[in-house]
């Protein structure tokens, strides 16, 4: 970040994604006055960008704030591609990776090429696409614990497809998909690595 004259700032509060919480105080994230707010997960950003404005529509105090805020928040790879400029980044890492499109990144935010553009700028990195890469991994928030058997059956399909690619690392933009897939993979004895795209970028420049 420092390289590109961006001052990073870590807020104290968490981002809230629950309805009543937003109404309660409209999330402390609204108090952030920075030009950009960046998050490492498509679902959280989708919640704040796509759903806050609707949920707070009737709220005089916050409806405008939410709409304005929605223009300043970015998912990490969106930020790199559309604000920083992906051409400013190059890295080097010898690795064979596969990429998992997270559903909310893909369908709520329309993130598809951005992360791939980033990965392509890492010398030595080979990307092998997953078969059926737009199918959900089965995390789904409370779904993962409400219907765990279904959730892991979906993870197993994903892991089977990942295994077929023979890649060493499954990269994604969403920490929750990764936690779910990695947890299941470990339980099933897979020993590939699961990593957030930011980790891969960091390694490629260090």
């Amino acid at each position, binding site marked *: 970040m420092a390289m590109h004259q961006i001052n990073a700032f870590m*807020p*104290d509060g*968490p981002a809230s994604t629950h309805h009543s919480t937003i109404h309660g105080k409209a999330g402390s994230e609204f108090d952030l006055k920075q030009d950009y707010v960046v998050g490492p997960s498509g679902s959280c950003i989708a919640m704040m960008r796509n759903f806050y404005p609707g949920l707070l529509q009737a709220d005089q105090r916050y409806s405008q704030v939410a709409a304005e805020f929605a223009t300043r928040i970015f998912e990490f790879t969106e930020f790199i591609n559309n604000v920083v400029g992906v051409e400013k980044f190059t890295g080097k890492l010898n690795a064979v990776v596969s990429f998992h499109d997270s559903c909310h990144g893909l369908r709520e935010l329309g993130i598809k090429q951005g992360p791939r553009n980033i990965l392509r700028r890492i010398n030595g990195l080979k990307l092998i696409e997953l078969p059926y890469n737009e*199918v959900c991994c089965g995390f789904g928030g409370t779904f993962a614990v409400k219907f*765990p058997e279904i959730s*892991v059956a979906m993870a197993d*399909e994903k892991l089977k497809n990942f295994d077929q690619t023979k890649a060493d690392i499954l990269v994604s933009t969403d920490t929750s998909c990764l936690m779910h897939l990695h*947890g299941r993979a470990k339980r099933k004895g897979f020993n590939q690595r699961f990593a957030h795209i930011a980790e891969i970028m960091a390694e490629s420049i260090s």
Partner: protein
Amino acid sequence: MEIEAKHFKELYKKQIVKDRLRSNLSKATLQAVDSREESFKEVDFQFLRAQAKMIREESVSHLNELLSEFEDQARKNGCNIFYAQTPEKARAYVLDVAVRNNVKLIVKSKSMVTEEIELVPFLSEKGIETVETDLGEYIVQLAKEKPSHITTPAIHKSRTEIAELFHEKIGTEMNDDPKFLTAEARRVLREKFLAADMGISGANFLIAETGDAVIVENEGNARLSTSSTNVHVVVTGIEKVIPKFSDLRIFMRVLGRSSTGQKLTSYVSVLRGPRTEEEKDGPREVHIVLLDNGRSSLLGTDHQEVLNCIRCGACLNVCPVYRNIGGHAYGSVYPGPIGSLVTPMYFGEKNAPDLPFASSLCGNCSEVCPVGIEIHHQLLSLRHEIVAARKSRIERFLFKNYRKTMLRPGRYQMIGRFARALSKFSVVRRIMKPWTDYRDIPEFPSQSFREIYKSGKLN
């Protein structure tokens, strides 16, 4: 009316362990997904979908006017129209028609609404045999099962399972060639068509302008069911009406592609009343039963768009939940994403309290829906309603505390520190059983990102 969907949690657990079922489903649904995608390459899906959505929205928001226009036209064409508020009333009407005409044998083509009102078991209880003539429905009927998909009722069965079933029930030789099996079914069904005294079908569209019932199919059985007997009854939902005959040009392009990846289905039949003086065949008496069963109560609500559905089945095929548990797990005639919406809406939330939650909200359904229903957003809003109405004590407690925590950065950070420390203890792990029974939990770092960030070590 009580339905099995109430017991979804037990039902899906029974289905998900059936490896053969899952592999049948996986093969069939993924093939449908691929064919669908391929077939939309040569047309502009987004354009067609916008048109289809517009027409359906228009239809549903003018449902009353369109229905009365349809009714007038269909009456002019010589049809009898019956509005059934409830499944009971619809069934009683059909039975009455059958009894008045001294009917012993009915040939029936596919109609999800007849499943919804459980018409066939009702008629057979009254001593009237009803034979399903759609191949998939016929298979399911032979197996004494229920359809597990809205367009491909026997999708849960493999070729071999079907061959075994035919061998056992109708004495065919063991041969799992689909051509052979289809010919065998056809042989048996032809006899039934010749002997039947009444036909029942559904309708994909009702045309207000002309009073027509339009039926889309691939096997020709619906055309035969609507024309080979003297009495015909169409059983469908009130929401099926569209304004103009010319509107079909849009739906014909999206329906076949969405269902099976076909540019056009093999048969499109237009039923315009009983036979006229000059016509040599066709029924002498036509009845159209229009079921409400909760549909009109959605008008003017946030859920109205659910009525736009044209029952193409695409949302089921792409759904990874459906693919892993199959249609029977839902305990409803309408399974999959659209089923998780309409089941609680038509049969009451108490009958299907879990279905709106049985989704990872991945949104693949909304992405493929040819009439642009925001299916996963609808599921989410249904969840809001259900939770607001009957939040369990524990859930309320958890969310109250979650809320407090999320509003106070200090408390949030403290809990984070606690959780990291406590995660080593087995009591804590026990609370996380629904997670840890199936997956490992990540090793919690001793320091949070925030702590590392604050310590300045990052720079």
